[in-house]
Structures are given as structure tokens and as C-alpha cells.
């Protein structure tokens, strides 16, 4: 979940300062790679998007379902279907002259299907996840595009015939059929309007898809746009896009082979599709704007284990860079053997500072999923949910972010109860395990009564629901819960500090430490500095700290493995992400049940932030990215397999070096080679530098390129810092 967003960049090329010097010969590796630029019609579309022009169409009257649902005494599944129908009907047809892929939402918020009091009664004694509706899963887009909705409708009809004596199944299948009809009616209205506007190109496509199987790339993109957008109309959110280059490539390949489209034409269409994902995204729910889970996966192996990298993998990376928008959020599956060509293209996308691609390591993730009970073929087919959590498109009804454990709280409570009791360090570790187990048990207890509302339309798009006559909310092949192991580095550092000073060196008395923690170090800054500056820290390939990191994840895995059934026939899958918990665990949040902590034994004062997912604790000095990779490679990812990226921030000034793209590509390869699981490389922009000025203590490791040399940003005098910021502001393309 992005808390701070980088603004999209209009012209990413100007971001590379080296290209700004005319007539200078550059040994730039990127010269070998072709560039993609938006054609004028799309430049205009992007401008309109950025300026919010598509919001002007949101004039449809608000849909209100409650009266009719009550009058007809509709069941929950029927109401969910009615919601899809009424929302589809409420959409005005919007076809702008520059559009070749259509659908613009004309309604604002999604109405409830029950009054609050009704819903409370119906769900009493149950737990809802977040907002309630099914979210954060991924449809079987391959199936939807290759079969078409009419074929799905036939499946529903035949299941209804077969299951006619099962009223629940019949009700579900009727609801599913209603949603299919609603989507097809909407497509038909678009087709008719296109005809009236003499947009016969569009009409032809929309008369065909999503009803029929897509027969070319353009149809496939249009079908996906419409079917995906309708999910959001039904109140679903964090709706993933899955393995895009796998399910889309057959259509594009056929077009290219038959000469029906050229690469540039395909790229422009794809760019339009990417832009279209930003039309309505401000209406999508999330913790922060942009936290909308439109994740798109590229690369990796096919279900049979052979390489799935294809021309579209490359095209999508190029187009994402050229489009320069925050959606879709690109993910790339890699191994240590992934070709540098592909990694360099990805690094060029990293360069423009959008914060993606995010990389996952197939060599680690696939066996990890298999170890968690996934079929090998399904494991090979993994994608990610909204942030980083692994899921199987079309086959999983998992709640990948059911909650988090507060690792700092588990450690802190162990220290505060173990030290006064005169416990050994081993005994303190046992307490940490007990605390983690109790946090997981609380989550398990609460969500053993999880209620997932019926989702007939999502069921149409999933694998097997219509065939079985059972709503996706009742479960699929995979039904696990994912738990974030939040803020692990601070927790490990706290343990390492206690072990080093209190137990090994005996240079710190338990009482002094406990007093300092109780008083937020107000009277013992000397101790705080000692804990913060001199204790071993995760991220330095220092076994004293890394062993604690490994241990704490081991205890977390033990805790999750102690729950054999989550109440839905699934497991508890432990991960290493933090999501927003790196703020929440430090400062509290009204919706949060995980325990907050005060001052901690790693020398962090009360309220201080934690690091995001896997990254060294904020403000501690670390040796650099190689040591960071080595530290985090020690976690047993066969047991910790819910995702949660190692997060590396590099200054965008790194890219002043003509070989930087190649070197960043090598860094990505290195991440895979050392056996880490997931990686995010962020290129820092000027906003981050300003933040570093305000809080230099948190950004000691921020390296900037100053001239033919690099320095620590915070060691530069303010005037020089301002100079760099100044130069950078000028370097920033205007939005």
C-alpha cells in the first residue's frame, strides 16, 4: 500500500540528466532498447486524465436498491446480482472521439444492498474483513477472455439443470446469470451508441465481446476493461489483473503473425488500456489514494514449468514506462537466470520513480507455495494481490491480508516481562514466541467467524464456481488467510540489543533498560544512543542481528502453523510485509486490533516509525544494499510465504551514471541469486529529499550523486542540500 505517491511523470526521458547534454557521447546501455512514446491522441488522453476530465461524466443519478430489494424480499445473492444489474444500467455510455477502448464510469459511490441495521442483524456474531465485500483476489482472466461470457452463461444454465434440486445452487446460478446479462446489456448499449456515432470499429468489437471469446488483441483489451470495471461497480475492490502477458499474448501473437497489427500499434493500444485503468481509480477504496490493487504480473514460468516470458512481457514494461501512470502497478517475476535485457527494461521503469516494478523470485516463491500445500502447477501460476501477497488467479478465495502481527510488541512485551523476572535470553525468546502465538490466535479466533458476502459476478469470473454451482464466497481451491509479520527489523534489533548488552557483554543492567523504556529515554539519552548506534542492526550482514530476524520469523511461522484450519479449510500463511502497520503500530489507529508499542530496546523512541516491510530500521546506519540483501536472504522463505518485499531506496541521481540501468539490472539479478523472495526498488525523488532535510536522522543512508562522487545526503551542508534539491526541481518534468 503506497502511503506516499510519486507523481506520474509526463516525460520520463528528461529525468535522465545525462541525456540532457546535447552532443555528448554516452555509453548508454539503454541505447540498444527501443523507446515507446504515447501517440498524440494518448498524450491528450493522459492530460485529460491528469486534469480529471473524465469525472465530468459522473452525472448518473445515485442508484438506490434498498426499496426494491426489500419489496421483492431478495436474498443476499439476489441483491448482489441486482446491484450489478442496476449499476450497469445506471452507466451512461461515454465514447470520446480519441478512445479506442471504452468504458468510463458515470456513477459515484456503490450503494449498499442492505440497510446498516439489516446487515448488522444478518452478520451478527460474524467478522467482516475490511469493508466487507470480496476484495484482493484475482479473476481467471484467461478463462473469461478465451471463453466469453455467453459460454460462461451456458455453463451456468447446464449446472442449473443438473442441480435443479438444490435451491441454493439454483439461486446462486440465477444470480450469476443476471450479472452476465447485465454486463452484456451494458456492452450492447455501448455497441449501439458506437454505431450511432459511426464508430463502426468500436461497434464491431462491442457487439462481439465480452459475449464471445476475444478474437484479437483489441477485443481482448476491451473485454478486460469492461469486465474488470464492472467488478468495482459491484463494490469489489483491490481487483487484480493477474498474469497479463500470459493470458493476453496469444491474441497479440496471432495479430502480429497475421500482420493484422504492428508492434507500435499494439503498444499504443496497450498504453490506452493502461491509461483507462486510471479513469475511475479515484473512486476505488483504499487506505490512501492509489492504494487500489490494480496489480499486474509479468514474466515467470508457465503452468508446465517452461519460460512464460514473451514479447508482450517486454512490450508491457516499455509501455508502462511510456505511459508513466501509477496504474497498473507492474510486477515482474524473475529468477537468477532472467535475461539482463528484460531486467534492464525493468530497471528503466524503476528509474522514472513510480516505485515499480516489484520483483518476485520464482526460485523461492514457487517452492514456498508448494510447501504450503499448493499444487505445483498452480504455484507456477502465482500472481500478487493488491500489494505483494501471493495468490493463484481464478483459483484462490484467500484473504491475503486478514491482519498483522506486531512483532515489535511481541518482543517488547517479552523484554518487559522477562527481564524483571530474571529470565535468561532463551526464556525471553520463548516469551516472544508465546506472544506471537497469542496474537495469531486472536486473529484466528476472530476470523474463524469470517463472513464473506455472496459475489455472483466475481463467481462468474472464477474457475469452477459456475461448474460447481457454488458462490466464490463459499471458497475455492485455496482458502488461506495471509498475515503480515509487520516491522520485523526493529523487533530483531531490539532483541539483538538486549542480547548483546544485557546478556553477552553484561554492560547494561536490566533495570536501567526497563527504566529507560518506561520513561521513553527522557532521562537516558546516552543509553538510547548506545542502543541505536552501537548495537548490531539488521541490514549489515551481522549474524548477531540477523539471527534474531531469522528467529522471530521462525517463531511467527510456528505460531501460524499451530492453526491447522482457519475455519474455511485454509491455513494461516505468514508473510513479511508491513502494509500501513509501520505507521499504525507506532502511532495507533482506530480500526486496528494489533498492539501498539512505546519506546523500544533498539533505541527507538515512542511514536517513531518502523521500516516498511523488509528494510533496516529507520535511521540506523547500514553498510549498503549488498549487506541488506544478505541479511534478508537468511529468512526461511519456505515458511514465510505471504509476500512482503525487501525495500531498497536508491536516489534517482544514481541514474546520472550511464551504466546505472545495467547496474540496477544486476542488482535485481543479485536479489534473486542470494535467495531473497521479493524486492521493491524505489527511486527517490525531490519530495523524499525534502523529507530527509526535515528528518535527517531517519535518512542517514540516503546517498546522493553530487559530482563525480557520491555522498551521504545528510552530511552535506544545508546549502548544498538545497542546491541538489534545487537542481532536482528543475530536472523534474512539469506535470
Amino acid at each position: 500500500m503506497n502511503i506516499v505517491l510519486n507523481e506520474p511523470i509526463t516525460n520520463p526521458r528528461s529525468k535522465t540528466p545525462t541525456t540532457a547534454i546535447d552532443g555528448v557521447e554516452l555509453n548508454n546501455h539503454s541505447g540498444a532498447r527501443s523507446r515507446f512514446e504515447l501517440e498524440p491522441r494518448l498524450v491528450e488522453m493522459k492530460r485529460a486524465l491528469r486534469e480529471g476530465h473524465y469525472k465530468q461524466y459522473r452525472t448518473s443519478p445515485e442508484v438506490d436498491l434498498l426499496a426494491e430489494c426489500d419489496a421483492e424480499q431478495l436474498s443476499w445473492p439476489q441483491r448482489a446480482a441486482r446491484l450489478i444489474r442496476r449499476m450497469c444500467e445506471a452507466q451512461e455510455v461515454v465514447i470520446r472521439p480519441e478512445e479506442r477502448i471504452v468504458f468510463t464510469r458515470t456513477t459515484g459511490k456503490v450503494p449498499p444492498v442492505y440497510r446498516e441495521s439489516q446487515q448488522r442483524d444478518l452478520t451478527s456474531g460474524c467478522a467482516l474483513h475490511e469493508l466487507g465485500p470480496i476484495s484482493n483476489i484475482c479473476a481467471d482472466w484467461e478463462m473469461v477472455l478465451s471463453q466469453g461470457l455467453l459460454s460462461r452463461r451456458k455453463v451456468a444454465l447446464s449446472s442449473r439443470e443438473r442441480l435443479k434440486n438444490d435451491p441454493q445452487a439454483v439461486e446462486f446460478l440465477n444470480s450469476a446469470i443476471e450479472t452476465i446479462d447485465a454486463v452484456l446489456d451494458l456492452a450492447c448499449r455501448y455497441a449501439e451508441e458506437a454505431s450511432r456515432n459511426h464508430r463502426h470499429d468500436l461497434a464491431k468489437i462491442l457487439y462481439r465481446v465480452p459475449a464471445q471469446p476475444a478474437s484479437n488483441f483489441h477485443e481482448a483489451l476491451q473485454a478486460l476493461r469492461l469486465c474488470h470495471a464492472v467488478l468495482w461497480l459491484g463494490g469489489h475492490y483491490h481487483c487484480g489483473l493477474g498474469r497479463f502477458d500470459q493470458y493476453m499474448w496469444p491474441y497479440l501473437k496471432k495479430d502480429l503473425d497475421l500482420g493484422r497489427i504492428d508492434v507500435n500499434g499494439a503498444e499504443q493500444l496497450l498504453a490506452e488500456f493502461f491509461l483507462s485503468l486510471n479513469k475511475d481509480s479515484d473512486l476505488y477504496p483504499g487506505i490512501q489514494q492509489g492504494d487500489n490493487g490494480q496489480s499486474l504480473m509479468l514474466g515467470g514460468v508457465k503452468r508446465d514449468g517452461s519460460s512464460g516470458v514473451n514479447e508482450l512481457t517486454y512490450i508491457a514494461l516499455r509501455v508502462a514506462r511510456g505511459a508513466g501512470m501509477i496504474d497498473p502497478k507492474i510486477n515482474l517475476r524473475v529468477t537468477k537466470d532472467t535475461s539482463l535485457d528484460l531486467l534492464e527494461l525493468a530497471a528503466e521503469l524503476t528509474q522514472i520513480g513510480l516505485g515499480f516494478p516489484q520483483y518476485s523470485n520464482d526460485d523461492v516463491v514457487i517452492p514456498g507455495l508448494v510447501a504450503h500445500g499448493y499444487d505445483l502447477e498452480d504455484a507456477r501460476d502465482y500472481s500478487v494481490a493488491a500489494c505483494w501477497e501471493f495468490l493463484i488467479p481464478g483459483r484462490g478465495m484467500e484473504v491475503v491480508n486478514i491482519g498483522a502481527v506486531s512483532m515489535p510488541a511481541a518482543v517488547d512485551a517479552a523484554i518487559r516481562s522477562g527481564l524483571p523476572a530474571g529470565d535468561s535470553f532463551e526464556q525471553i525468546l520463548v516469551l516472544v514466541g508465546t506472544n506471537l502465538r497469542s496474537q495469531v490466535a486472536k486473529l484466528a479466533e476472530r476470523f474463524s467467524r469470517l463472513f464473506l458476502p455472496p459475489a455472483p459476478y466475481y463467481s462468474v469470473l472464477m474457475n469452477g464456481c459456475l461448474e460447481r454451482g457454488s458462490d466464490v464466497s463459499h471458497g475455492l481451491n485455496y482458502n488461506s488467510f495471509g498475515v503480515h509479520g509487520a516491522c520485523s527489523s526493529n523487533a530483531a534489533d531490539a532483541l539483538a540489543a538486549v542480547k548483546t548488552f544485557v546478556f553477552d557483554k553484561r554492560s547494561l543492567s536490566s533495570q536501567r533498560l526497563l527504566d529507560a523504556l518506561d520513561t521513553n529515554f527522557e532521562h537516558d539519552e546516552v543509553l538510547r544512543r548506545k542502543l541505536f548506534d552501537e548495537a548490531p542492526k539488521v541490514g549489515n550482514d551481522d549474524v548477531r542481528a540477523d539471527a534474531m530476524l531469522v528467529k522471530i520469523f521462525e517463531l511467527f511461522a510456528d505460531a501460524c502453523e499451530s492453526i491447522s484450519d482457519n475455519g474455511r479449510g485454509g491455513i494461516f500463511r505468514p508473510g513479511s510485509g508491513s502494509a500501513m502497520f509501520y505507521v499504525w503500530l507506532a502511532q495507533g489507529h482506530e480500526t486496528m486490533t494489533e498492539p501498539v508499542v512505546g519506546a523500544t530496546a533498539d533505541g527507538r523512541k515512542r511514536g517513531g516509525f518502523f521500516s516498511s516491510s523488509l528494510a533496516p530500521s529507520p535511521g540506523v546506519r547500514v553498510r549498503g544494499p549488498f549487506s541488506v540483501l544478505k541479511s534478508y536472504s537468511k529468512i526461511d522463505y519456505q515458511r514465510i510465504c505471504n509476500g512482503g518485499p525487501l525495500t531498497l531506496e536508491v536516489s534517482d541521481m544514481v541514474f546520472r551514471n550511464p551504466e546505472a540501468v545495467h547496474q540496477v539490472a544486476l542488482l535485481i539479478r543479485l536479489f534473486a541469486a542470494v535467495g531473497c523472495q521479493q524486492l521493491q526498488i524505489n527511486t527517490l525523488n525531490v519530495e523524499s529529499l525534502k523529507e530527509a532535510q526535515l528528518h535527517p536522522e531517519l535518512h542517514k543512508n540516503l546517498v546522493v550523486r553530487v559530482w563525480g562522487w557520491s555522498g551521504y545526503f545528510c552530511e552535506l551542508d544545508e546549502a548544498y542540500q538545497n542546491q541538489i534539491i534545487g537542481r532536482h526541481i528543475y530536472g523534474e518534468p512539469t506535470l
Partner: protein
Amino acid sequence: MLTGVVFDIKEFAVHDGPGLRVTVFLKGCPLRCSWCHNPEGQSPEPQVLRGSAGERLAGVSFTSQALADRLCSLAELLRVGEGGVTFSGGEPLVQADFLAEVIDQLDHLHVLLDTSGYADENSFRKVAAISQLVYFDLKLIDSVAHQAHTGVDNQPILRNLRVLNELGVPFVIRVPLIPGLTDTEANLSAIARTVAGMPGLQRIDLLPYNIAAGAKYAACGMAFQPTFDESEKSNINLSCFKSAGLKVRVV
């Protein structure tokens, strides 16, 4: 076993050579270039830097084995990353014997020596011969100007350049473009004439001056006293090199 003083070890030093590298900054330098951006590298003694993020000790003693062990712990990563170790400074050859001892223990990692070229011939020979690539600075060909702006005579540097050429170790010439001092047509042409025809020469890197060079002086308790006009832009003149048939780039 010898002991040396290091003021920084930087991982992912993307500007210090090919591939993924770790750069070791050795403390102590005989030159006093008025544009020096690493003032903490000048004194051979450890010193405390006081910046906005607090204090940091610049200068840690390592035995050659301890330093080599630290670098070798990254060996596998550096090989995957098609890179190696860069020794910079300060002037790394001030600690040539220590450095040679470290390199001997590096298990054949790719070594890049980043040097001003100012060292006695034996020291230079000893380390350059066991390096795979040398970044060799050429600042000013005019010896009077060199003395005035760097504090030392350039004759040993020019001699070591010839030694380097004889050794057959590949090298890159690095020229800081200091406004009005090193970036003049006369100086750049003289540099081009000096290096033209040397078989080991890979290319010439021009490094435009950046106004932030003086940033760390206050933290070191030193005064930044440039002998040139800082506000001027570097003159990026490639033709001197191109006309001599030399490969040149700006970094």
C-alpha cells in the same frame, strides 16, 4: 601483517567502475586539490565528522586480513554482479604496501585502482600490476599550474602514467573539469596529446565540476577555499579528444 586506515566502504558504488562494486576509500592524500570533494580523505588520521545527522567517525583501522575478509564476504555477490572492488581515497597509494597485501587476499576479485597517479614508482608498480583496471586522474599538464592548484608536482604522475602504459593494465583517464583551470582548450588538448596512442587506454571520462564539492568541509572542521570561480559552468569540450581519435564521455 600491515594495518591501514579506511574512511568509508561503500556498497553499490555505481560510479566507480563496471558492474556491482564495493568501493574502499583509503585515508590520506598528498594532494591538496582546491576542488577536493572528499576533504576527510586528506589527513591520514581518523577524524570525527559533525554533520546534520550527528557525528560519524571517518577513519577506521583495519588489518589487511580484516579488510580482505570483509570484502571477500561479498565475493560471491560481486561475481554475480559482474563487478568487484574499487580502491579509492584519499590517494590509495599512500598505503600501497597495505593495499597490495589486501589485494593479494582477495581471491581473484576484479580490482579497480582509482588513483591520482601521485606515488613513488615502486608503490605504483606494485599495486597497478595486480589491478585489473586503473582509473587514472589527469588534472593539469602544466606543471606550474599543477603545483599551484593541487600542491604537488605532476612529474611523478606523468612518469607513473608511462609506467602504467608499459605494464599493459587497461586504464581510463579521468579529468575533473574545473572551470577555468582544467577545462581549458590548452589543458584538454595537452591531455589528449599525452595519452594519445597509449595501447592500454580504454577511454577518457570527463567529470564536470559540481558546486557541491565543498559540502563536507564544515563537517570536517575545514575551510573550503577554491582557487577558481565556483559559479562558472564547466566547459565540456570533447573535440580535443575526438580529433585525436580518442574515446571520450561525460560522467
